[in-house]
């Protein structure tokens, strides 16, 4: 978090020096600031900062990919003359246990293919997910566990 | 455009009034809401209509260089929308409380202020 602040300060310094407060210039300042911090990564112990940044980026990329994919699948499904659906709700055992992680996971699941978070169990052990194709529950669970949940845990721990 | 809007306004008014002739407060309230929209469209149309050009002066100019939509009716409607929203909210809660206390939203049965069987006042002296 501290490093994030430092990065912002660097960006501000950049804009002050260049005398332009335009958005592009701020972004440029931020990127340059990140580069500057990267240069001094070992002194300031910023390895985790970048690693997390990369993982977050990875999560975002995965999400976008999954979003497009899911939208596409839904499109195909909907446009098919014969919708051979096998929907259902399954309980997904959570590894994540922080509110924030659970929430993020649930939201990502909702936005991705064929799954939709309905609820979290009282004891926060299970996430109830509605799937549009529930013929193979275990495969679904596996996908989530190795997809989003892993990435989230990587990014935030 | 004005013709289409006039017709629209007429339909809005008709629907609103039909709903307001109901015995049930919730329906009357729906009528009130539509009534409000009808009036807003009336104000809008009465100020004459122009497509798409919002009455906002471009950054570079001191005054619009071309005709814009008439801003005054818009300002009037804003005031009217806000007011009718306030009234709608009040009426809604009033209806709700009336329902809670009187047990009905049928205006025929919630006649507490003017009860049905009122006897004559005393005729003596």
């Amino acid at each position, binding site marked *: 978090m501290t490093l994030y602040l430092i990065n912002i300060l660097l960006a501000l310094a950049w804009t002050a020096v260049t005398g332009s407060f335009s958005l592009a210039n701020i972004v440029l300042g931020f990127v340059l600031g990140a580069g500057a911090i990267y240069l001094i990564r070992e002194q300031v112990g910023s390895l985790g900062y970048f690693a997390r940044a990369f993982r977050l980026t990875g999560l975002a990329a995965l999400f976008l990919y999954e979003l497009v994919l899911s939208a596409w699948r839904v499109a195909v499904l909907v446009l098919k003359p014969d919708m051979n659906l096998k929907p259902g709700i399954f309980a997904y055992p959570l590894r994540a246990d922080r*509110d*924030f992680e*659970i*929430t993020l996971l*649930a*939201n990502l699941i909702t936005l991705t293919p064929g799954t939709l*978070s309905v*609820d*979290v169990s009282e004891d*926060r052990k299970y996430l109830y997910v509605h799937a549009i194709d529930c013929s193979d529950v275990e495969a679904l669970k596996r996908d989530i566990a190795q997809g989003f949940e892993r990435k989230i845990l990587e990014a935030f721990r | 455009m004005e013709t289409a809007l006039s017709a629209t306004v007429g339909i809005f008014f008709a629907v609103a009034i039909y709903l307001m002739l109901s015995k049930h407060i919730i329906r009357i309230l729906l009528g009130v809401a539509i009534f409000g929209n009808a009036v807003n469209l009336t104000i809008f149309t009465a100020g004459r209509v122009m497509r798409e050009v*919002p009455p*906002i002066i471009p950054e570079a100019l001191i005054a619009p260089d071309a005709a814009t939509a008439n801003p005054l009716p818009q300002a009037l409607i*804003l005031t009217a929308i*806000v007011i009718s929203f*306030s009234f709608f*909210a009040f009426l809604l*809660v009033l209806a709700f409380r009336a329902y809670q206390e009187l047990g009905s939203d049928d205006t025929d049965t919630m006649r507490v202020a003017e009860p049905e069987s009122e006897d004559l006042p005393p005729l003596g002296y």
Partner: protein
Amino acid sequence: MRTLIFRTIAPYLTSLMVLFSIFVLLRGHNEPGGGFIGGLIAASAFAIYGIACGVSPVRRALYFHPMAISGCGLLVSALSGLVSIFEEMPFLTGQWGVIEVLGVPVDISTVLFFDIGVYLVVVGSITSVALALEEREHA
């Protein structure tokens, strides 16, 4: 409605919306927006907060009773119209001035305060309604 997911995300959403509402308020003079719309957005934010996390946190967050905020708004608007009496001008005549904040010139005007008053009235009243109804819900 106080599900874990909603409850976790609602405060962030609320602050985001309040921020956005102030943005809408301040730019209203030049772009679509203004006190009323800004106030509605902020009130929506508090309503979401209230639905997700309960009424008490919202009341604590606002500190003042929403209707007092509303009254304050009306007062601010009316008073901003009264400033012009000192300039021998009619009620609600806009007074414009520039003050320096840390060396940066900032335009201030009675018109802006008027709009802020509108904002406060709307935030206060609508929030009050929403909270009162929400509260009744759990009575």
